[in-house]
């Protein structure tokens, strides 16, 4: 019987019976091959070197599912890897929980799974355990993904907000706003055609190199939702120090700036998926910059500012291109396009 209608996920695929088994064996396992996962146990049992671990969890609900430079699958792996990486660990294993909307085409699901498998391989991590559920049509945007990740802590690395001191330098590993503006450019209703690409990438290779080579790294955070502005404001909350950055030193692609200008967005508030902020001692800043620039994911790295005395009110201040000063506030949490 000729049937041109694409095959789709049914609610029954989440029921834990035959259909679930077939889904896992026929469609999920092939992309994520590894010994641990193939056992299909309730938990993965892992032999780790003794020491301490970093442990994280994340959920991914991005729309559209596929965008220039990535997709929800790649995002899920890189996002989890990056959370582990900036905490000073070498990412090792991930869990993968899928919540699939009934009606999602299998072709789409397989593309995403393939992307997850590829990205995991590229980043040296394994998906060791997972779960699959389905929900009724209309209850999810195609697919939601949740992950948890474990990384092995790098020896001798102690980073944290409490390590930051006046005089420290602040760096980013490249251009800001690429991911968020790319997503917006492909969003229904306010989309526009562009060459913008998400910067979605796993940063562990670069962060491990930094941690292992540069002494004096105080703090690192990936600049995802809320952008650079959120990270810097989180840093100064309840702190005894403030932050000063220089507008002319913040790397932003002209196309990203123009797109943000057209819609009335502030690039400092826009999400990134392949960028981190690192606070390093003044002595370590040059080496930090050199290592970043030598790496494919840090070519446009720059020192953007420094940690200063709070003078009673811990703030993030920006020196503008014209030599003026203004404050960078914590973003509201939703950038709305404006005409006024």
């Amino acid at each position, binding site marked *: 019987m000729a049937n041109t209608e694409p095959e789709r996920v049914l609610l029954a695929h989440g029921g834990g019976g035959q259909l679930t088994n077939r889904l896992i064996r026929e469609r999920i396992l092939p992309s994520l091959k590894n010994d641990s996962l193939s056992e299909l146990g309730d938990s993965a049992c892992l032999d780790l070197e003794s020491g301490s671990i970093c442990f994280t969890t994340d959920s991914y609900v991005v729309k559209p599912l596929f965008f220039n430079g990535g997709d929800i699958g790649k995002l899920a792996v890189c996002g989890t890897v990056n959370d582990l990486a900036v905490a000073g660990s070498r990412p090792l294993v991930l869990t993968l929980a899928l919540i699939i909307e009934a009606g999602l085409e299998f072709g789409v699901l397989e593309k995403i799974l393939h992307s997850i498998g590829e990205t995991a391989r590229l980043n040296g991590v394994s998906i060791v355990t997972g779960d699959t559920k389905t929900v009724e049509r209309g209850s999810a945007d195609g697919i939601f993904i949740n992950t948890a990740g474990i990384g092995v802590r790098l020896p001798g690395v102690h980073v944290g907000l409490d390590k930051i001191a006046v005089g420290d330098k602040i760096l980013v590993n490249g251009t800001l706003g690429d991911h968020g503006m790319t997503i917006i450019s492909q969003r229904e209703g306010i989309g526009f055609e562009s060459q913008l690409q998400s910067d979605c990438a796993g940063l562990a290779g670069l962060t491990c190199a930094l941690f292992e080579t540069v002494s004096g790294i105080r703090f690192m955070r990936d600049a995802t939702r809320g952008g650079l502005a959120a990270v810097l404001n989180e840093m100064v909350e309840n702190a005894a120090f403030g932050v000063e950055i220089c507008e002319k030193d913040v790397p932003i692609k002209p196309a990203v700036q123009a797109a943000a200008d057209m819609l*009335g967005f502030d690039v400092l508030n826009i999400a990134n998926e392949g960028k981190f902020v690192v606070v390093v001692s003044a002595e370590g800043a040059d080496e930090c910059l050199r290592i970043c620039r030598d790496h494919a994911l840090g070519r446009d790295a720059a020192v953007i500012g420094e940690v200063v005395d709070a003078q009673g009110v811990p703030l993030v201040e920006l020196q503008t291109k014209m030599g003026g000063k203004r*404050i960078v506030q914590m973003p509201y949490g939703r950038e709305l396009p404006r005409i*006024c």
Partner: protein
Amino acid sequence: MLDRIAKAQRVIEEACQAMGREITIMEVCGTHTVSIFRHGVRSILPDRLKLLSGPGCPVCVTDQGYIDAVLELTRRDDCIIATYGDMIRVPGKAGSLETCPSQAEIKVVLSSEDALQLARDNADKTVVFIAVGFETTTPATAVAVKEAAEEGVENFCVLSGHKLVLPAMRALLGGMNDRIDAFLCPGHVSVIIGAGAFQEIVDDYSRPCVVAGFEPLQIIESIAEICRQLSAGKPELKSLYGAVVTDKGNVAAQQIIEQCFDPVDGYWRGLGKIPGSTLQLKEAYRQFDAFERFGLSDEPGEDKSGCRCGEVLCGLIEPKQCALFGSQCTPEKPVGPCMVSSEGTCAAWYKYGRRN
């Protein structure tokens, strides 16, 4: 750029010395408010020069009654509310578009054209376009109304909150705040109405009027020009945005506004009634008027107690002089529109200036 800025700073400094008193310049464009803050312009001006933000943010001056009318519409499941992003967080009596439990679909659009397309694509619903903005934005609404009329798109209508800048400027100088020495005139409104439209302010009130662009250099050079004129005692109209502003403006845009709208008396938040300051759809296009179609009231609402947005909008007080600023009224929980709109004076102060 930096040497031109330094030069402008020198001119400003000299003029301030020569004048020997405080100079008050008002801008009446929300985008100027934001630009001035974003680039830290005030931080490089002498203390004696006060740069006031006036009623230039169309969202801020939109009366509470209008917002409440919009929220009324959210109770209808046969409507799609198409709005610019600016309006999503503005609070009315019962919350905002963002927080209210809406039966109507709310869609953020970038253009009146998008709103009209929504109407074409959703024949079973009525699309109400929340039309706010000054003369820069009004022609876009007019074009959409005309197209709707020509094509017979009956399920499209417009809730007009469009306002005119000059009547507000006159109301300010005519009594609300006559301490204003000069105006930094809105660059993009001028694109539509022409720089020449501000000549009447110079003639009738002897105030310098300089049309400025939105980049920090353009703004500071315009301020320098104003200071020069004040110091010389010769108020003039000057445009420093010749790249896009002409004396006559965009005649096609003016005509299309004329074809679709009549100026009527209207309520401005905090400023009260200003004659001939608001635009209403003409008789010929009344079937696209959402106020009429849904029997909505355009009576002014009451401002929340303690809210001093009106005085802020007139430039009579600075945000920090309002008791609610930074405490009960913050960007997370705004009381009045000056705090909600990204262009609102209070939001800009809070966001970019030092907190209390």
